[in-house]
């Protein structure tokens, strides 16, 4: 400290050292590689082996998928005789691709499936738009209300009184949601608030604010109800459904119903009422200890024997009911696990406050438990999505069923690998999307909420 800088009157002056860049080879790509890939002799050797292995597999795949690929052919034989020898016959996949997606759904009616998919996307999209309010209502209705509209689009034909009511409700709700989203994006306030303001009720007490909204909703509902009263589409029987479309229908209904029924069963299992508890435990344990395929066989072969004469349940309906029951039993245990993670103090605080059982469940326990359960819940959903391939065994042509069908088509006989690879890619995309969405949800709900 001999030559430390001082002021004129002899005071020491603090002089910071300049910030230097970090030593080379500790940051950036080189640093990362040194630290992660070549950190010592063993690490280097395994890195080299690993890279060689990945390279070998990638090369093999590249040759199979691209080098030997035959894109245009009218039969499997043509692919075989191609100049590349035993060419990878993507032509067959291309030829059958529409069938993979829609099964045997009539070509002229395929637009109905596309339309339903588009409506679903539009219905869910607002969840990603930050300015939209009442996201919970939008999201729940997409799962609970949309199926009726979709069901009619898929099935067509005449509607009975129940479907008449529900389809109109579903359509009204969809239009209302779209209007709400538009209002949110343009005016930055919800449709409900806007209605209250336009009707001049905003000066009244909060209690009266719901009336103009209810009146508007009823008017819209009856308008839609009478407008679509004569609307009818060609019937497409479920036997013609198939492909990825059928997979999504079965697993979608299974997924949508699993959570609510699972919650009810889990609460029932923890109930103080012995009869409710015993019934729930019996249901859960029964369905969890029987393989899904057995339940599916029972649903399609044995269940009809118990039905009264004349009441015919089609195969698809029995399968969907079976899948729903099965997934509900699994979901119940997932939910119970989440409920156990909530401390007793939370229940007591809610109780001491005077909240009723359902209020404390809905406002306090479930929001916390469900957040903890997201990874497990999505895990079950992914499992369910893949498990629906089992329906191909009982004669429904889901995605896997259609894949098997192509190899029996005389023109493409014996074509297995390429369609199976395609199915794997489609399943992978579906599962990855769910997985990514769950991570997004976890991050979003976890914000600012530490214990």
């Amino acid at each position, binding site marked *: 400290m001999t030559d430390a800088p001082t002021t004129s009157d002899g005071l020491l002056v603090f002089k910071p050292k300049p910030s230097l860049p970090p030593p080379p080879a500790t940051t950036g790509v080189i640093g990362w590689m040194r630290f992660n890939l070549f950190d010592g002799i063993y690490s280097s050797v395994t890195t080299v082996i690993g890279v060689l292995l990945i390279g070998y597999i990638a090369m093999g795949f590249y040759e199979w998928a691209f080098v030997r690929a035959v894109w245009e052919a009218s039969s499997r034989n043509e692919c075989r005789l191609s100049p590349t020898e035993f060419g990878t016959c993507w032509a067959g996949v291309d030829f059958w691709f529409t069938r993979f997606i829609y099964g045997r759904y009539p070509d002229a009616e395929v637009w109905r499936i596309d339309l339903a998919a588009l409506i679903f996307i539009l219905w869910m999209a607002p969840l990603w738009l930050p300015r939209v309010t009442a996201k919970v209502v939008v999201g729940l209705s997409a799962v609970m209300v949309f199926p009726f509209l979709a069901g009619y689009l898929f099935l067509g034909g005449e509607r009975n009184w129940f479907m008449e009511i529900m389809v109109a409700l579903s359509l009204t709700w969809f239009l209302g949601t779209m209007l709400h989203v538009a209002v949110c994006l343009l005016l930055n306030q919800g449709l409900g608030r806007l209605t209250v303001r336009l009707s001049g009720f905003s000066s009244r007490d*909060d209690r009266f604010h719901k009336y103009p909204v209810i009146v508007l909703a009823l008017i819209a509902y009856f308008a839609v109800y009478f407008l679509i009263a004569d609307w009818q589409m060609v019937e497409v029987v479920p036997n013609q459904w198939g492909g990825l479309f059928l997979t999504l229908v079965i697993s979608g209904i299974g997924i949508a119903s699993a959570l609510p029924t699972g919650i009810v069963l889990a609460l029932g299992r923890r109930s103080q009422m012995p009869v409710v508890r015993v019934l729930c435990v019996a249901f859960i344990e029964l369905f969890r200890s029987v393989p899904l395929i057995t339940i599916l066989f029972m649903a399609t072969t044995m269940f009809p024997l118990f039905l009264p004469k004349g009441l015919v349940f089609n195969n698809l309906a029995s399968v969907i009911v079976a899948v729903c029951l099965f997934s509900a039993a699994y979901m119940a245990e997932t939910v119970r696990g989440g409920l156990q993670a909530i401390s007793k103090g939370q229940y*007591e605080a809610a109780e001491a*406050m005077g909240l009723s059982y359902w209020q404390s469940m809905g406002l306090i326990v479930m929001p916390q438990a469900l957040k903890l359960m997201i990874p497990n819940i999505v895990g079950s959903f992914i499992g369910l999505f893949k498990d629906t391939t089992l329906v191909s065994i009982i004669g429904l042509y889901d995605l896997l069923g259609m894949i098997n069908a192509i190899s029996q088509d005389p023109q493409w006989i014996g074509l297995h690998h390429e369609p199976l690879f395609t199915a794997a890619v489609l399943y992978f995309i579906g599962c990855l999307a769910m997985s990514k969405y769950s991570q997004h949800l976890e991050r979003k709900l976890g914000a600012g*909420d530490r214990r």
Partner: protein
Amino acid sequence: MSLQTNGTPDSIRSAVSDEVVIALNQVNKWYGEFHALKDIDLSVHKGERIVICGPSGSGKSTLIRCLNRLEEHQRGDIVVNGVTLDTNLKNIDAIRSDVGMVFQSFNLFPHLTVLENCTLAPIWVKSKSKREAEEYAMELLTRVKIPEQVDKYPGQLSGGQQQRVAIARALVTRPLLILADEPTGALDTRTSLELMVLFQDLNRQGMTVVVVTHESDIARFAARLLRFRDGHLVEDLQQAPVDAAKLLAAEALPA
């Protein structure tokens, strides 16, 4: 039973009225085979500040948990604000909004903000409008001296602040009395003392406060001291309480 009021400053003497808020008559409670409360007779008047102390397992927590029916007593009568506690669910609901409860581990709802924690009961139990509930909650949060933290989540607050929120939350339903089960159990000495200042302030404004504790330090802040032992109420003592605010200033404990 001794009654000492000498030397108690008027400011912290409880404004006790003759009105009985809680009356217990021969209350008995068993956990399975364990006899937790034995023939308890007690009456609490409006505006009293009571500390219940005793070793763990002596029945002191059980008693106040019976008062708002978190636990069920098997024999005897408990009358809270004129309503007898029995299996009638309507009575229980009425009592729960008359009795505010504060817990040792705070038990705030971690997924709700401080303000939402405090407006939950008014909105859902008392059917108040959101605006009304928020106004009153803000008033109380100001009274417990944390109005700046209202948009934070409980996990972002310190223990003392969380307990203050819990007290505000217990007060939002405008209860007749507040029950606190070991409210300082998870707090350090200084924070405990600050909390006692708050309880004394509330009491001065007319709130009946019942605090359960096993810390003898806390006991001296009460005007009435109940001692429990093996399920018996062994002592019921009127005493000259120490003014927590003065002590806090005098001790000048490190912040």
